[in-house]
């Protein structure tokens, strides 16, 4: 029985790793292009979604965690959201990425520009206080959720072997 599972899932896992590599490539391209960083957020979130599927340890963080987040970027009118829930099909908790704002969020983060948004997901230590004080970032909702989210998202650059974006402190 177990062997059967493995045979079914091994290709799935390989496919996920491949997908992660593709995302990495995409990310590097966005970074190399410089300037306009929109798209990076979505890619990073998709990467986080994959990492959570692959990494059992990290997945433990989203057990019984039904949180909803929206990220809105004012220049470029970007919105992307994530929600966590338990997947009946996979019988494990998963993260979903949506290309739009969602309601009933625990917290909504509004960024002034794509650069701040990119830093938020890709920097070594996203500094939300500095963001607020520089008028580049606004939070609406339960701050504790964003703390947890930063903990999760900090794994993305590490896991993908991408140099974090440095944050102009």
């Amino acid at each position: 029985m177990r062997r059967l599972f493995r045979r079914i899932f091994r290709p799935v896992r390989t496919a996920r790793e491949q997908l992660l590599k593709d995302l990495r490539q995409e990310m590097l391209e966005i970074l190399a292009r410089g300037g306009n960083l929109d798209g990076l957020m979505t890619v990073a979130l998709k990467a986080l979604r994959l990492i959570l599927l692959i990494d059992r340890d990290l997945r433990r963080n989203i057990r019984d965690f039904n949180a909803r987040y929206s990220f809105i970027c004012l220049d470029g009118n970007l919105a992307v959201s994530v929600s966590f829930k338990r997947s009946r099909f996979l019988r494990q908790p998963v993260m979903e990425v949506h290309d739009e704002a969602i309601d009933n969020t625990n917290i909504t983060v509004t960024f002034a520009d794509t650069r701040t948004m990119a830093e938020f997901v890709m920097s070594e230590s996203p500094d939300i206080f500095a963001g607020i004080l520089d008028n580049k970032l606004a939070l609406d909702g339960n701050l504790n959720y964003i703390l947890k989210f930063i903990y999760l998202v900090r794994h993305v650059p590490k896991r993908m072997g991408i140099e974090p974006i440095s944050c102009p402190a």
Partner: protein
Amino acid sequence: MGFSIQDIRPQLAKFTRDNMSETLPLLAELLTRHHKARTAVDVERARYITAYMKKPDSRDEPIQIKRAKAVKNYLSNRKVHFHDDNRLGGATTAHELGAPVYPEFFGLGIWPELEFISERKANPQFLSTQDAKTLNYDVFPWWLERTISEQVRKKDSESQALVEKMILMTISKAATISHTTPDYGRVVKQGINKIIANSREQEAACGSDTTKINFYKSIRISMQGILDYSANIAVQAQKRADEISDSAPQHINRRSNLLEIARICSKVPAEPAASYHEAVTALWICQVAVMAENSNMAINPGRIDQILYPFFRNDIESGRLTVAEALEITGCLWLKLADNVNLVPEAAERLFGGAGAVPAITLGGIDADGRDAVNELTYLMLKVTELLPIRDPNVNARYLSGTNPVEYRDEVSRVILSTKAIPAFFNDEQNIRALEEQAETLEHARDYAVVGCVELGSAGRDYSASSSIFMMLHTVLYMALHNGRTPVTGDKSLGPETGEPADLPDIEAFWSAFEAQYAWLADKAVHLNNLYGKAHQENLPTPLLSSLFHGPMESGRDLIFGGAVYNSSGVTHIGFADVCDSINAIEDVCFSNNRMMHMPLADLVAAVDADFEGYDDLWHYVRNRAPKYGTEHKVAIRNSQRMIRNNFECFDGKRNYRGGNYRVAYWTMTNHAGYGRVAGALPNGRKAKVVFSSGITPASQVDTSLTSALNDVARLDSRHIPGAYALNMKYSSLEGESAATKRFSDVIESYFRSGGQQVQFNIQDYHTLIDAKATPDEYEDLLVRVSGYSAYFNSLNSAMQDELITRSQYDLMGNGKFVKLDPPLKSFKSLSKAGGAK
């Protein structure tokens, strides 16, 4: 045979920092260890508290009982550690230098960096992988919806959003229940068993009032926690002692030390102390216990030279205690008080890093009857302060001219010159008067202790919550100049619409706008503070702290519900000098017949908003020629006094959630530097992102003289500053001990007689501090005063280091002039970047 208490002082003179390794080897060793210790995040408390809160069978308990049991769960079960040969048992955390996590408050702030905090650049705090997992999986998730800030947001998200803007005010209740001075004397003298017995009697007498019954029960639960903890220390010490079998001399010492700890901890704090060593231990264990319940911020031992004096005197006179031993035991207390720091998330570190836990000790002054309270133990504690120049405890010296001896004032001065930073000086005359104006009785006011940084409160009677509100004066000014808009709210007016600059025809109109914005912010701050207070009442009653106060036991009411004799809250201010000078500049440039530089307010505001780009003449003018606070300029005096009066009157009459007053104060810890670094330019010529001046201190590098600066501060009406202030003075290095001490001491006497409330010092030259920033390794233990407490220069963030460097330096041994920082700020800035490791 003992010796007379009068013999103490000549004996003390024999002990110096230089001969400490021979005369007080234990203290020398502990001091070295202290400087070497690395900060570790302590999760033990968070784990035990959370575990109890999660328990299914605790769900239906009244919060009063539940909170008591959660804290007891920690105290009774926490592990006992002996990191060194300190003669006192007990420790704040499981680590030699620990930063406890309070998940009820801001503990979750380190969530983002759980895997990085050990290695981060600025002040790393070590966290083991195992402990990180505990926080990540077992502790933090449970608090997601339950932190105090979140409780408040759920009730009033609009108000909470104001706090989250960060530039208007801070409400410290989100971070802490603290900033107060418990009455440890009662434990030392009566013992906890007596408190337990009292609570039983009171409970029996209170009929069927369940709130009261629960309160008295909760006291007993908490007290049992302390007793368990102390008993565990005794057991572990005994066990450790038994394990030492060999007879190497240092092991014999260690063994007898452990046996003594075991003996003492099996007796106190349950029973009254009978010796100095026992009394100090009892006090320390209670201090640890208070921090088990409440955050480790400004939990103050208070007037311990008064509390402990009878024990000290008895032991000395009966010959049970030598001066060296008394120094050793007292020094052990100092080092124990320094065994914890605050947990600082990385993001906060960049703004406010470097803080200790600031337990304040208050020495000297007068007693409740108005008599000189300086005693031989006061001098002994000053000696310990001199021998151990460490960040904590925050030592403060009270002084009443005419009543306290001049030799005491001289001795405090000498210790300040010797340590270059501590203690801070407080003027009893002004401070007692300020407290009387706050409706404290004369006796109670005379028994004040310094709270945390500089605030005042009757010891053991005033639950002072003195750091409740930080008002950002620069934001108030911005709003007054922008029709109620703030730098982070775009085109929308947040405050009242008091008019665009063009609508303000004269200085009175400007003041009205300023006062209206201030009043608006004050209302919001009070509303929020009270919301937070209610959240505390609903979630975090404080039975343990309550049992160490005058009031709650008699009234059956927890501190957090107003059970103390006095129930004040503190309101402090950031940016005082810079904002006063800005108003001076506005008055001078826009609203006077000044022919050299005149422009409409709207133009001035435009220039400031452009960070003076393209307004060179104006910038030079407001910097060099506009009236400045600290120079005794008529306009500046009038405006500074008006600001002080306005702020006081605005809060006067407002009541907090416990029915107490709001006490206005001016101290800033390191926040003036952190917030300065993120604030825009001001009309006084301070450019964007430059640090503000600290506390009540005149702006740095303004052309003051020593006496004009002191006079302008002393002129402020202390009745309008009941929470006191921090005045930072920096002197060039002083040579020639006795002449320097006399001069230093004379200046303090004169300043106090002119009406000053407080003053603290750094005896440091510009170049020393610049050098320390560039080569931190060579200045590892350099101790400095920030605004209210001491810190190690190296642990401060770059903004705060710059503020310390640029503070005006006076040449006390020369012509008294302020020495300009040369080269000036500009060229120095590039230097700071090169040197700024953080």
